[in-house]
């Protein structure tokens, strides 16, 4: 009971801080929107080229946008001593980290996913495919946030550690992006929503759900010493 209360408190606080003054919850969403907005200018608005690239481009934009929010995930808490206090609390650290990631995902990724159908229209994705594609992006974004948290935890004590976090995280992102983009390509060519690449992506997300909080908690613990 008190464990559930503590977890809920961590999760809602993460959302509240993200949306509060200076929280930067909309940073990822605006990065995503901006990068999709320039796509027709950079790649040309022709439906046959843009339509082909579109689904994969959304995955590219999602991947880079998710990196933007990572740097501060643990750094702010480390700097002001919140992490010390959280480690002293009776809630297991990996569970706290999981709640923080889910809170961050709710605050940051959900706005991004809300605008993703419009983004899909901008890159000329077939209207019939937009909804399943955005659902796949939603599943993938959770995986990206979970995996990204490991890098964020490792780089928490590095000032301006965004570059380090990106270097650590991008290789780990590769499988999710490969399966996600393949699933999107399958959708665009008339395949099923539950295509094989998407099922692989789901498996990756589930594995990340199990392992990433433990790994991130261990990495966070290093900085507190």
């Amino acid at each position, binding site marked *: 009971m008190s464990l559930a209360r503590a977890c809920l*408190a961590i999760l809602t606080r993460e959302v509240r801080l993200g949306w509060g003054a200076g929280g930067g919850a909309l940073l990822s969403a605006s990065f995503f929107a901006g990068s999709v907005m320039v796509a027709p200018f950079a790649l040309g608005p022709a439906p046959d080229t843009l339509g082909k690239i579109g689904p994969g481009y959304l995955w590219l934009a999602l991947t880079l946008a998710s990196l933007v929010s990572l740097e501060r995930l643990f750094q702010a808490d480390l700097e002001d001593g919140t992490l010390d206090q959280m480690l002293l609390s009776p809630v297991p650290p990996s569970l706290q980290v999981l709640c923080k990631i889910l809170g961050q995902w709710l605050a940051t990724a959900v706005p991004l996913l809300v605008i993703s159908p419009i983004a899909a229209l901008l890159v000329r994705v077939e209207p019939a495919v937009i909804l399943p594609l955005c659902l796949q992006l939603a599943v993938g974004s959770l995986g990206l946030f979970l995996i990204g948290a490991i890098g964020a935890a490792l780089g928490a004590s590095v000032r301006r550690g965004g570059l380090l976090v990106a270097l650590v995280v991008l290789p780990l992102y590769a499988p999710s992006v490969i399966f996600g983009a393949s699933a999107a390509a399958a959708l665009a060519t008339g395949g099923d929503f539950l295509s094989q690449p998407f099922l692989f992506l789901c498996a990756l997300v589930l594995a990340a759900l199990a392992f990433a909080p433990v790994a991130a908690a261990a990495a966070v613990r290093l900085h507190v010493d």
Partner: protein
Amino acid sequence: MTGARPHQHDVRLQIAGLDLQRGFRRLVTGFDLTCAPGDIIALQGPNGSGKTTLLRAIAGFHTAAAGRITLSRTQGAQIEEAGEVLSFLGHQDPIKAGEKLIDQLCFWADLCGANRERVRDTLARVGLTKQADLQGGVLSAGQRKRAALARLLLEDRAIWLLDEPASPLDQEGRALLGTLLDQHAKQGGIILAAVHDPLPGVSARVLNLGTVESGVAA
């Protein structure tokens, strides 16, 4: 346990042969300390003598190079995690700029399993009733320290590890700190504080780090 009724703590702290190291620098060697319920200990010593590191080692944040830190209870369940019985007040205050003070304390209450109804009373005890609905960013250093003290009261743990608790507090705040320390010690709590000035309002056992007796090479 979460009630407002004062109760007696009965946790003991025993440190034996503790060596602390920061990088290649040995800060403390062969440090021994035994604390019984009601003990107030003031750790003194020059900057860099290892006061904070010692407190962080007791809290379990810093891994000691050698030695043993034991927390024990005379009755009841074994202590598995240091966090069950101790609170840590560092020189940083975990106050978020963009959140109301009352929400932050409610968060800490949720996290440690304290009753949310106690939050307003606790804020009143540390003299922050008027600031309850202000954002954390507008609080002064002294008010932030008072908020951290309120967190300590909410957590209601037996051992308080305090790192420079009095530094940003005004006269009234120091008197308040003295009262809180005195009440905590009377309830059988243990207080270890790293200080430069004597702790206000209470008589503490002074322990000097950075001297020969404490086993510290200056």
